[in-house]
């Protein structure tokens, strides 16, 4: 892998934070990758403009499922809650950066969540995304089945591999290398989801991947993606028991706008690896871990 280091330098790994359980998992995955590459970890918190707008409307009321109370929403309170969430996420980010011994920065953006995040993808080497939504996981966790099964079988949700989509060997090798690093660090298997159009092309891609990885990564598992549908990808990542999925920023999943559809259906985070190194410094406030 050393020969490829200069081509695959990753200086900044970003992660979208929104206080959900999924975003915590994404933060963990991003921190591990940043630590393995000695890259900077950057947290990005999006203040959803839709929430500010609805708070301005005079008749909106919020139902709180936990306490079963109802209250009028106003802008001041909404902004306060968003700032509070941002602070919590920043603290989490700094804590994990300290644990991993890496530097970190944090920034807040305001706008449409998906648009803001896709814009951020262009600014960093790696962007870590998960299912969006401030309370989506908390909301899910309130279902009885989740809590009962979690209590009865603690730790059963553990995944056992890092997955990466590998299409065109030359263009997507950066994602492959990052995935290999992460798998090594987490001591997990590496599942390479090969997207060849034919058997021959698939075989070629496997050979390419083998050549790029050399002998340093163990437990490599090739899975052929049978189609380009999101459902195929969901099936493939589920069967490989993926903890995290890495994908090149040029991949159709990202470029074609199906990413959000995919994220709605899985709980593992997706790391989008830019093909080239980011050429712009982060606008966030850098913080050095103690």
């Amino acid at each position: 892998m050393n020969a490829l280091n200069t081509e695959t330098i990753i200086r900044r790994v970003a992660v979208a934070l929104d206080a959900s359980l999924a975003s915590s998992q994404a933060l963990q995955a991003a921190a591990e990758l940043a630590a393995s590459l000695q890259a900077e970890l950057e947290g990005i918190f999006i203040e959803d403009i839709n929430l500010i707008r609805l708070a301005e409307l005079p008749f909106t009321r919020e139902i709180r499922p936990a306490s079963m109370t109802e209250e009028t929403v106003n802008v001041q309170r909404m902004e306060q809650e968003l700032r509070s969430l941002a602070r919590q996420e920043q603290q989490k980010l700094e804590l994990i950066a300290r644990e991993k011994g890496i530097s970190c920065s944090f920034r807040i953006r305001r706008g449409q969540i998906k648009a803001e995040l896709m814009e951020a993808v262009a600014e960093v080497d790696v962007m870590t995304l998960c299912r969006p939504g401030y309370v989506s996981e908390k909301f899910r966790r309130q279902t009885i089945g989740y809590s009962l099964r979690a209590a009865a079988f603690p730790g059963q949700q553990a995944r056992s591999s890092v997955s990466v989509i590998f299409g065109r060997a030359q263009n997507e090798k950066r994602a492959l290398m990052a995935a290999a690093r992460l798998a090594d660090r987490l001591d997990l298997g590496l599942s390479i989801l090969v997207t060849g159009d034919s058997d021959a092309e698939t075989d070629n891609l496997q050979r390419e991947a083998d050549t790029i990885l050399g002998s340093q990564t163990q437990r490599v598992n090739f899975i052929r993606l049978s189609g380009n549908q999101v459902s195929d990808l969901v099936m493939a990542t589920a069967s490989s028991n993926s903890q995290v999925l890495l994908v090149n920023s040029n991949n159709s999943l990202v470029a074609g706008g199906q990413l959000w559809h995919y994220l709605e259906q899985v709980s593992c985070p997706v790391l989008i690896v830019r093909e080239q190194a980011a050429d712009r410094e982060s606008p966030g406030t850098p913080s050095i871990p103690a």
Partner: protein
Amino acid sequence: MAINNLKASDLYHSCDTKQLRFKTTARLKALSEVIGQERAVEAVRFGVGIQRDGYNLYALGPNGIGKYSLVRRYVEEKAKSKDIPSDWCYVNNFQQPYKPNALELPPGMGQELSIEMEQLIDDLRAAIPAVFESEEYRTRSQVVEEELTERKERTIAKIQKAARAKGISLIRTPTGITLAPIRGDEVISIEEFKRLPKKERKRIKEDTEILQERLHKAFHEEPQREKEARDKITILNHEMAAYAAGNLIDTLRKKYHDLTAVIDYLNDVEADVVEHFRIFLRPEGEKPSFIEAQLTGAEQTSDTRYRVNAMVIRDTNGGAPVVYEDNPSYLNLIGRVEHSAYMGTLETDFTMIRAGALHQANGGYLILDALKVLMQPFAWEGLKRALQSNEIRMESLGQMTSLVSTVSLEPEPIPLQVKLVLLGDRRIYYLLSYLDPEFSELFKVAVDFDDRMDRNPASQKLYARLIATMVHNEKLLEFDSAAVARVIEHSARMVSDADKLSTHMRSLMDLLRESDHWAREDEHKIVGREDVQQAINAAEHRADRIRDRVQEEIERGTLFIDTTGNKVGQVNGLSVIKLGNFSFGLPSRITARVRIGGSKVIDIEREVKLGGAIHSKGVMILSGYLGSHYMLDHPLSLTASLVFEQSYSEVEGDSASSAELYALISALSDIPVKQSLAVTGSVNQHGEIQPIGGVNEKIEGFFDVCSKRGLDGTQGVIIPASNRKHLMLRDDVCKAVEKGKFAVYSVETIDDGIELLTGMTAGQRDESGKFPEDSINSGVEAKLTEFSTRMHAYVTRSESSGAKE
């Protein structure tokens, strides 16, 4: 008049080896019965035989007399014929964990149940996770979960669909969920909303409120649905756990089907396992976190919750237990609840209940040392309470004294049926009888050990067999008959009585062991008389440092003792000093001075508070004797002072009262007393000499002083005639007497003694009531009459001069 110059044979009562009729102890049969303690044996037999409340035993007698051995022997004999009592276990009380239940099981089964419950725990640890990881459980629980999730999602989707149709969307906020009008994927801004026609704004508002109401209703129903789902999962969980546990527990139920208490316990275990199945899903030995414990009430891990604390396990080969508790503290008697530290706090449970001596002895016999019990705080009270209530109620000292009120365990009391034997000296027995009203109720059988037994040919033979038994038990060299005879003679000396033998077994055993030692040192094959004598001498030598020092000071003239010549008003008295187990006699100079006065004999020892009560009594008797013996018609007008010269510690006892009277008589009659003689004996108001203690030590004490200065045949000791039977003097004293170098006289009256001391006639009143002239008594009477006359004249003069004034 009965003055006897005793012969050497009177001074030592030898044991005739011919009467013993054996060469060595090897030929003697072991003695199975106890000798010299017939009363005690009878009491023990009665005490261990009677099965009634309060008939506990108190064995009283001095330490070393063999109380423990005798009691243990008879108690063990009785215990063998009794049934083995039950095993006792403590198990968890699942309803009230702080009150563990006691479980009574047939002997030996407590341990079995404990092991089988450990096995059950292991089996459950495998069986319960297995059923919860089964496909059946996964599928059934998933059905419940999905049913709830789908229902919820359907409801939300329905509302979302209805909202979308009206241009409204459900939106999640950081703290909940709300509804807002949208355009595309974006919420319309307030400016845009304001630009809408009024009618449209009204519609949006009304639609939002209707949807909000539906949403609210949907959420409101959610807890009930969740509860229903939770109940279904709980029922499923219990069903699975019951299946896993039931089969395993059934095996135990079959085994213990005739023990109702165990069956009840196993049923409780099954119900609890079903309720708390999650503890078997944790890794072995892992404790729940503090938060988990608080939330689930799972205070205990599976290791402890279902364990059986087999606290008292019986030996199925023996009979009833016989327990001797060497350290009878409160906790060692009643039992204790131990604690262990966990996360900075002390915690405990029923597995940390430890049995006390009462638990171990339950159904049998408990032997305790009375003094040790009384010296341990609360032990006596705890013991009495257990005996009175017939149950062992375990309470910590903190609980008992109400000093600590924190929550602790209150183990279920265990019924108590025990025969308690206290071993102690007589003083403690009589003190307890006097001071503790409950004592007599609880210890109705006094086992009184005698410290001596009669000495006669038959008892000497038995004593020889006792010695042989001890020799064989201790694997000592055999003793020949002369050695045994010497032991018997020393035994008589130990009780200071030629007609008695000591029953103090420890002293006897010590003498035998030490004799064996000296015999081996001298490479003897058999212990002989000289080995026994060496053991006696060595033991005496080890203890007689103080005696040697005092003798040395007498020899050097630091302590004034005359052994030759004659002195007026000065007599050699004899006293005994006891230091630990060693006693020795010493002469003391007693002097008397007389003058005219008001009928007063001043005991200087008493005046300076160095005289004990009995000593003072003896001195006061002297006034009575003088008045009644000499001054029948006149008032006694005498002031006399008596003193133990060079005595710097308390003088107690009346054994010197005859010596003091001799000194007084000498001072009054002005007749000197022989300093070659020493005197012992108490006197009564009639002038009769009464017996005293330590006669052997006293004679030997004066003999040693004289011996060092050189025996000239004039020296000797005057003793009461009633003490002759107590004489067991040292061999060197006897030999000196035999050779006429030293004398031991026995006297019956003061007149006997004064004649020996002065060499003059004491004198008896004749028919006219007068003492013969030139007799001692005549001189005393004349002096006292003179004092009286002068006193009368003095008083008359004083009164007449007072009248003139």
